[in-house]
């Protein structure tokens, strides 16, 4: 597609349930990022994938959060045993590999708004 897509657009779940959020990056972008945006706040980095390298998980807030990426395509962010403080918008972004011409500009998806009741 032309841009980064994310699904679902909105997700309402009950406390304690697991959720999966999906991100489809721009074709050709080897770098993929997940961010969390709490209400009225800036974005917090969660995890970074670059090609087949081991992901940088340094931003994940707890072991309830995990993410996978298949090659250089789709990524899923999984939150287990959701808590009310997990309510936020989860944004995905992709970019060319760092070091290449044009690297640095991240293209964002529209986000998934997660509400944990």
């Amino acid at each position, binding site marked *: 597609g032309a841009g980064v897509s994310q699904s679902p657009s909105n997700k309402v779940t009950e406390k304690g349930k697991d959720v999966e959020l999906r991100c489809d990056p721009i074709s050709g972008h080897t770098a993929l990022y997940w961010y969390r945006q709490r209400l009225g*706040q800036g974005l917090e980095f969660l995890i970074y994938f670059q090609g087949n390298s081991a992901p*940088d998980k340094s931003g994940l807030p707890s072991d309830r959060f995990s993410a996978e990426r298949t090659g250089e395509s789709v990524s899923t962010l999984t939150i287990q045993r959701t808590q009310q403080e997990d309510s936020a918008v989860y944004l995905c972004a992709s970019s060319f590999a760092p070091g290449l011409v044009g690297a640095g500009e991240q293209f964002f998806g529209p986000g998934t708004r997660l509400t944990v009741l």
Partner: protein
Amino acid sequence: AQTVTQSQPEMSVQEAETVTLSCTYDTSENNYYLFWYKQPPSRQMILVIRQEAYKQQNATENRFSVNFQKAAKSFSLKISDSQLGDTAMYFCAFMKDSGANNLFFGTGTRLTVIP
């Protein structure tokens, strides 16, 4: 660690006027990038302008320009001839030139353009 500070939670400007949004950052890196992103109510993050730290010349993109002061670690955004469509949250962001290349964001400035 990198931190980005936006000290203006909210700003307003009359249509066609000029407004400046402030941003300061803290880093020990010498090479890095700075960005301004716009987030309208649709939630879509849109890149407004970027600046490479090694470039002394301030970046400009049509009505948007920056004042980059590397020594002062300041990176302000100037919007000229403000338009109603400029109403949005504006985020300043920092990215290292090495490693994970993730963005570090400020808390944002909500800009309202008044007709």
